[in-house]
């Protein structure tokens, strides 16, 4: 490798010679996945392993009168049939509440239902057999006598006096309520020239990870240790929860996370069937494997969104937005999820509405109600798509009312780029955002004027195209303010240990996890750059509670910003240690030496002095040749958590260009643009692909995805043929641009990028559809924007 410059002074640790920071280098270890040689949980087999299949309630709400499994238990290959009552002796129930969400309540949830099933799909018995097929056969001949109870399904009537209370001991079906009143809302409305109001409706949808949830739990009674192989985003959280409810110490539980077939927030929660699998392993003293089938995935993977939000906006004729007000209602199923709770999304909606804008008057109410449907909880971009769609929908409606261009009203109201640090009306602290620079860049990329001209031309031929914008803010790098302060044992800090091995290669253990985002790559890039070695020399180990430092994992766009900073700081220490030893060996001073291209060099003239491989040889095998008093430490560990800001907010803006077929109601996406600001970009290719993937999940919500329940609480489209997800043929190319405002809280300066795409995509599409339909005088504020919704709005059906 050519040494380009040995002058390290004045350069930060990130822009040293041969730095990988900011380069789109390929992720390590992709060949394993491309050759079919990965190891997903569904691939794992262990000696004496048995398979569990859950018998699930066909009713949304029913009393379990009797379970007769006598015939099933006699079937060949069946090892056990276990009811909820029997399993409760091994694992205790839980209640999904957090103390900082004041007033949040929920009822005890059991691994397998006892006495009563509260949603269609809740497990009522577990069947363990030598194969999954045999266990499935056995579930079919278990006879369960149910007494069907009235199901609470419509969130709008869940709080009515006539509606049954799902958990009588809670008094009502209200899980959580938050009210916020900032500034002078009533005065602001009365002082506005126009007030616009709309009801925004969001379909219930889900993550559809391509690999269903899967777990292999292996209780070894001889070691008294439980090893859990699970595709989780948060291994230490799973360790804590499993130990807590099985009556074990955390040191008795190891969580191993190999390859994960998609997560998106679906795999960051604790599910009843997974808890049951841990308990069954302990009860039956052997490895037990659970792999959800696709119908189970739809019925039990957390659902998300399902909000109805009334929004109001006040605006002056000059375009000044004076006030926002929302009244949000969401239904979360019969239990608040554990341990992150199901109140976070509504709470986020309250936090985020109006976030990009200057208006200081803001009133919000959010209510979270129980219902007899599948549980709801945090999925990618928690709350953001709701808040963004409501905010951006209202801004467009206001612009339309006063006859102002949607870009112009945003320019007049977005927080100015030089106003930071500042706070939102809801109290969010912003360190540095770049709404105006982002909008300017977006308009350049999309040729806004050209598209408007094209739109006018095409309208003459009865072709209806629309342009929609959505500015957004995004929560990333959460501190303990997210969960820790509420009492959840979910770590907000991360740790990285980095060491030089005996041949001069680097082994890095990190507590963040990999589900395809590129955690491994960005960690290797940071370590290689800061240390001064080539990336091929760095091996990253993650996803194993026995073999990584303690930490939060990968969720809420925290891996790069928090885990990356820990990697940077650990590597700085290792580098200093190496240079001290090198100085001793070379009779030089640490400050006069640097590491470039796997070799210790002189800072002054760049002359190569000693290869790391040779240094490691001396340290590990000939320490007798080192000067007395030197104890080399070729391993360093550092932890990091943000303390100054509760969250590192990012921002961005999206635009959609689409065509609405007013005869069929179909929407054709033509192009999509995103400009976002995630601070320091470690790997531009990985960031861009996070954005694109996020956008497409948002486009799915905008156009296709919806869990359709009937009035009895039956999910009617619980399969991939009827629940539509975006396919390649209907997705547009997505152009991504960046503005870079690093956070000054960390040396790395990175914020997250995982939610940005999903946060604003649906809002941009909905605004574009309304823009396209402008000649028809109709406004749609409901997603998914199915042909049925559009044709109904046009009065065609």
């Amino acid at each position, binding site marked *: 490798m050519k040494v380009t410059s040995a002058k390290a002074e004045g350069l930060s640790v990130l822009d040293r010679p041969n730095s990988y920071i900011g380069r789109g280098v390929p992720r390590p270890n992709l060949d394993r996945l*491309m*050759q079919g040689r990965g190891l997903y949980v569904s*691939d794992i087999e262990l000696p004496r392993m048995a398979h569990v299949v859950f018998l699930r309630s066909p009713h949304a709400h029913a009393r379990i009168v009797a379970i007769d499994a006598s015939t099933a238990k006699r079937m060949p290959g069946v090892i056990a049939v276990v009811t909820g009552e029997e399993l409760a002796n091994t694992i205790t129930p839980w209640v999904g509440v957090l103390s900082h969400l004041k007033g949040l309540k929920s009822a005890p949830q059991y691994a397998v239902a006892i006495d009563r099933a509260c949603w269609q799909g809740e497990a009522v018995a577990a069947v363990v057999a030598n194969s999954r097929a045999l266990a499935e056969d056995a579930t079919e001949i278990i006879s369960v006598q149910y007494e069907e109870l009235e199901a609470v399904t419509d969130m709008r009537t869940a709080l009515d006096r006539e509606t049954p209370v799902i958990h009588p001991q809670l008094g009502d079906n209200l899980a959580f309520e938050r009210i916020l009143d900032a500034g002078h809302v009533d005065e602001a409305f009365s002082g506005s020239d126009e007030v616009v109001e709309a009801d925004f409706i969001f379909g219930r949808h889900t993550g559809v990870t*391509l*690999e269903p949830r899967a777990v292999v739990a292996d209780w070894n009674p001889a070691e008294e240790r439980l090893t859990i192989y699970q595709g989780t985003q948060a291994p230490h959280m799973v360790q804590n929860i499993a130990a807590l409810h099985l009556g074990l110490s955390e040191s008795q539980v190891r969580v191993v996370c190999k390859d994960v077939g998609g997560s998106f927030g679906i795999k960051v929660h604790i599910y009843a069937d997974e808890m049951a699998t841990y308990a069954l392993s302990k009860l039956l003293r052997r490895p037990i494997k659970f792999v959800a089938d696709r119908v189970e995935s739809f019925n039990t993977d957390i659902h998300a969104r399902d909000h109805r939000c009334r929004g109001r906006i006040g605006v002056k004729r000059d375009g000044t937005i004076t006030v926002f007000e929302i009244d949000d209602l969401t239904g979360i199923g019969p239990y608040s999820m554990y341990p992150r709770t199901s109140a976070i999304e509504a709470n986020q909606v309250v936090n985020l509405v109006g976030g990009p804008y200057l208006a200081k008057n803001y009133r919000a109410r959010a209510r979270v109600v129980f219902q007899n449907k599948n549980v709801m909880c945090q999925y990618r971009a928690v709350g953001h798509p709701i808040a963004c769609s409501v905010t951006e929908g209202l801004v467009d409606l206001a612009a339309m009312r006063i006859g102002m261009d949607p870009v112009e009203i945003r320019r007049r109201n977005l927080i100015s780029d030089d106003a930071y640090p500042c706070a939102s009306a809801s109290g969010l602290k912003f360190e540095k955002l770049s709404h105006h620079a982002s909008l300017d860049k977006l308009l350049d990329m999309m040729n806004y004027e050209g598209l408007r001209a094209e739109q006018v031309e095409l309208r003459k031929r009865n072709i209806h195209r629309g342009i929609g914008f959505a500015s957004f803010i995004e929560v990333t790098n959460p501190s303990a303010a997210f969960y820790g302060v509420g009492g959840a044992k979910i770590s907000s800090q991360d740790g990285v240990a980095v060491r030089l091995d005996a041949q001069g290669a680097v082994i890095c253990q990190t507590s963040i996890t990999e589900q395809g985002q590129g955690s491994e790559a960005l960690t290797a890039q940071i370590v290689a750059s800061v240390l001064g070695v080539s990336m091929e020399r760095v091996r990253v180990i993650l996803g194993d509670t026995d073999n990584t430092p303690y930490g939060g994992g990968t969720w809420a766009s925290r891996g790069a910003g928090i885990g990356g900073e820990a990697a940077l700081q650990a590597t700085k220490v290792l580098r200093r240690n190496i240079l001290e030893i090198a100085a001793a060996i070379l009779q030089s001073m640490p400050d006069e030496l640097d590491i470039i291209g796997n070799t210790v060099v002189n800072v002054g003239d760049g002359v190569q002095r000693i290869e790391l491989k040779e240094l490691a040889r001396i340290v590990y095998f000939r320490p007798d040749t080192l000067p007395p008093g030197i104890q080399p430490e070729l391993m360093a560990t550092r932890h990091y958590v943000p303390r100054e800001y509760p969250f590192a907010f990012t921002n961005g803006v999206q635009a959609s260009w689409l065509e609405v077929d007013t005869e069929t109601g179909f929407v054709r996406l033509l192009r999509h643009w995103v400009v976002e600001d995630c601070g320091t970009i470690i790997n531009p290719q990985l960031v861009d692909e996070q954005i694109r993937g996020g956008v497409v999940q948002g486009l799915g919500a905008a156009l296709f995805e919806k869990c359709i329940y009937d009035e009895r609480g039956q999910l009617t489209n619980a399969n991939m043929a009827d629940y539509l997800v975006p396919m390649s*043929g209907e997705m547009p190319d997505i152009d991504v641009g960046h503005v870079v405002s690093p956070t000054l809280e960390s040396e790395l300066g990175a914020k997250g990028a995982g939610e940005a795409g999903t946060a604003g995509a649906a809002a941009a599409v909905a605004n574009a559809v309304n823009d396209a339909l402008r000649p028809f005088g109709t406004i749609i504020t409901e997603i998914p924007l199915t042909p049925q919704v559009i044709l109904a709005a046009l009065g065609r059906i």
Partner: protein
Amino acid sequence: MTGPIPISLHVNGERVDAHVLPRLNLADFLREHLHLTGTHVGCEHGVCGACTVRADDEIVRACLMLAVQADGMSIQTIEGLSDSGEVGDLQAAFRDRNALQCGYCTPGMLMAAQDLLRQHPEPSRERIREHLSGNYCRCTGYQAIVDAVEATALSRRGRAA
């Protein structure tokens, strides 16, 4: 239940003789009996494409085909296509373009993409998007995959010229 039935087939060029239950599908046979876990199971009803394999000369959904139906056939899985080097350039393009994130759809996606490139060496982006529409990817948003397939088609054409 009907008892096991003998089958004989070639998988990735190796002869395989087995006794299988009539209800066993090809995906489960490959994964559980032959431990070829590169063939993934996503939806178990022929929609998502994660289990796509090549049976003789056609790509099929291994979850929709019974193992007994593969009797006498030659099956290629992602392990076979990787070891033979047939899709080495496509895999390199996927790596360079980051056309995979979690990787769960990738074996099926590579199978489908190679099928397209064998039939149509010069596909347009629309054609690529259309051909891959039976393979779901939840991570990438597809654009990187389309780019990688397009780049492979171009470089194969360059080599052929």
